[in-house]
């Protein structure tokens, strides 16, 4: 069933993400110390990639801008925080998101622009009957799949995909009518 198929894809994506995430990058940890202005010295930010136990003012603030006596007073005002991130996750996520967005864009361009042109060129205007209420709608014509099945003898699988796609398109058209045209649902 489709649910199981989606579940398998989902698990695959999870495994992929986990593999990127577990590959630890040494640049992904840092200790960030923020020191406010002190006497004549300006405020400064110091960063180093050290581990958690070395994350304090004495290890990270280099070169120390004050001399021996004032070091303690200076360090008391500084605040040091240990931070971690996962650069692999960020990279994988953004690339996956952009590819899904790109695929959807291509499919949208195909549906709205290319498909009517292709169908018109293949079958000519007269064979296809346009449905009445398709005034502003770019959707291809409702009985196109009938024409297709008559003219070519396609194998069973392709026919089924075409059927399913036509059914999905009709559903979306219905939804579009109730949301955008008649404003029945979703104001």
């Amino acid at each position, binding site marked *: 069933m489709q649910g*199981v198929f989606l579940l398998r894809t989902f698990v695959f994506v999870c495994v992929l993400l986990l593999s990127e995430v577990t590959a630890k990058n040494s640049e992904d940890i840092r200790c960030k110390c923020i020191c406010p202005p002190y006497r004549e010295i300006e405020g400064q930010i110091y960063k180093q990639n050290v581990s958690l136990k070395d994350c304090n003012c004495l290890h990270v603030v280099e070169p120390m801008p004050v001399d021996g006596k004032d070091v303690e007073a200076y360090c008391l005002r500084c605040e040091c925080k240990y931070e971690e991130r996962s650069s692999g996750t960020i990279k994988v996520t953004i690339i996956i998101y952009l590819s899904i967005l790109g695929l959807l864009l291509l499919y949208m361009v195909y549906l709205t622009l290319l498909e009517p042109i292709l169908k018109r060129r293949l079958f000519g205007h007269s064979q296809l009957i346009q449905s009445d209420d398709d005034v502003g709608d770019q959707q291809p014509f409702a009985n196109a799949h009938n024409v297709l099945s008559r003219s070519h003898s396609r194998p069973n699988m392709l026919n089924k995909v075409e059927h399913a796609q036509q059914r999905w398109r009709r559903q979306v058209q219905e939804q579009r009518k109730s949301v955008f045209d008649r404003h029945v649902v979703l104001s």
Partner: protein
Amino acid sequence: MEAAEGVSSATPTDELNGAGNLMDFLEEPFPDVATYEDFHTIDWLREKSRDTDRHRKITSKSKESIWDLTKSLLDAWSGWVVMLLIGLLSGTLAGVIDLAVDWMTDLKEGVCLSAFWYSHEQCCWTSNETTFDDRDKCPQWQKWAELMTGHSEGAGAYVLNYLLYVLWALSFSFLAVSLVRVFAPYACGSGIPEIKTILSGFIIRGYLGKWTLLIKTVTLVLAVSSGLSLGKEGPLVHVACCCGNLFCSLFSKYSKNEGKRREVLSAAAAAGVSVAFGAPIGGVLFSLEEVSYYFPLKTLWRSFFAALVAAFTLRSINPFGNSRLVLFYVEYHTPWYMAELVPFILLGVFGGLWGTLFIRANIAWCRRRKTTQLGKYPVLEVIAVTAITAVLAYPNPYTRRSTSELISELFNDCGALESSQLCDYINNPNMSRPVDDIPDRPAGPGVYNALWQLVLALVFKIVITIFTFGMKIPSGLFIPSMAVGAIAGRIVGIAVEQMAYHHHDWIIFKNWCRPGADCVTPGLYAMVGAAACLGGVTRMTVSLVVIMFELTGGLEYIVPLMAAAVTSKWVADAFGKEGIYESHIQLNGYPYLDVRDEFTHRTLAADVMRPRRNDPPLAVLTQDATTVEDVEMLIKDTDYNGFPVVVSRDSERLIGFVQRRDLTLAIKNARQKQDGVVSSSVVYFTEDVPQLPASTPQPLKLRRILNLSPFTVTDHTPMETVVDIFRKLGLRQCLVTRSGRLLGIITKKDVLRHMAQMMNQDPESIMFN
């Protein structure tokens, strides 16, 4: 999609649908007996009894063999498995959305040259060029003007950055609305009003489908990144419910029973809020208070588990490091004083007033969109609103950045480590206190500058959110409401702080505010303001306070938050009883019988039932005197959803009730499958075949589809009781009898229309049944 099945009633032995093949989902689903039409209400009692039957069958069979015992155990555990899957998928999707929004929001201003997938903060993570004043400066991240022309300062660079900001915002929102329009029109809007209606028993096919899930996730990122004044919390609830619906189809226990499915959806809504805010307990309470209709204890446990798994998944993705799961974490713990309750209550009043204003204005605008020419140009509307938002938001640094960042900055207190304009206080050069205990200081010029900009930002946000919420892209309103409240709260907080500093000898300040002490925390006022505004709009109480203290981690501030929430709810309720979601439900005419409405009028069932005096008589079927042809004509001539079955036309004693859809399917099936059934065959609902002359064709037995226990009331039952019965049991229709004879019928639509009439609203606005 439901598995293709014969017209026999749903076999409950079909449990875990294991490996169906890919071809199955391409087949057109065959409509099943005991399913529902689109835009109709379910019959809760029937769903409950079907589930009890299924459960009893499995339990009784479980004693027969080990295999049956395993099946019964798996059936019991399937609920928890579904919750686990929902939590995992919602957490993953929320993490993806967070990361993508972070990156795309910064894309409007510049790009990271070393690795294009990093946002501004991530790009400068390892750089050593950052300064105290400009925490995010580094050579790897360049603004667009600097990239294209080489100049980074000057009027030309500013104009070029401005132009590119607006262009990116327009392209994101245009992409979002086109994707919604072409692929999934149900993905627009917030989703919470429709989910509330679905959970109360309404059917909207495709609203929680797979394409809606995909498009809502993708376009939510685009909509939020385009800088529009909207949030992602409401749409995340919709996304989580879509995940819930998706996993329900794995188990027939949930896919075939609409009542059980809604239990899963309630829990999924809790998981949605949990990942939107990082607030699992708040999510469960939100589902209880705002979204769900029936919330038994079992759903409470399941929601808890789903919210937990979702929060855990989001935490383990954890892309930002260990400091960012709590969204607006506040690091101060300064106490608040009793005298500060006065400004807190004032902020509550402001929240209530703003809530009322927003609801009235937004509903008026949405009604205009529904009825006039404005609604014919959704794409143009989105582009226009985005253009106005981007053009007006760029000059003000507080509206240029994303709203979450703004709220985060407003909630935080100004220690010695902050260098933003808002924290430009005049510091005592001899001050040597540790970072957390800075006493009150006079404001420097930067603070006054920031105050002006904040006032402008407040006005801008108040106006633009009214036009943004309800457009044809996914839009939520939690974050914009919190932003409005946070800005107002911070302004009040700074005012009180400066008053306390400059006039510390006034009576009100003398007791609790000594010079040199840290009295007033403006960040706390921002938190209280945010809670007040959010409460004024949505009318949440307990869940609001829990979400706020889970968002900020400020457990000391529960009492001020509660005070503000209660005040804003009282003030807002004084002007109108409905929150934003109930108002949208009313605007769309959904058949939602609110549990909060009290019906106190003294009408009787006889006043509401149909047929009225001038109507044609009630359409009934007799138990053994109707032919197939009569039934078909009845179905064709009328559009009632069901017909009562009586003993005969003279005695009119009630036998049961039969649904229209079941009748249609059963007769169609009988004509196709059974021999000998023709138009003049008699339809009978009794147990035994009635006495008929020998020459009549074979009669058709339809007792199987008859509901033998329809709910009845007498004609003198007060409507108060009838409304209560409809609410508590989730009925669709109720038959009215007098002295045992059938008199009429009351449907849920009649009840809703009657209630609307009693409240002087338009009864014709109820559109669905």
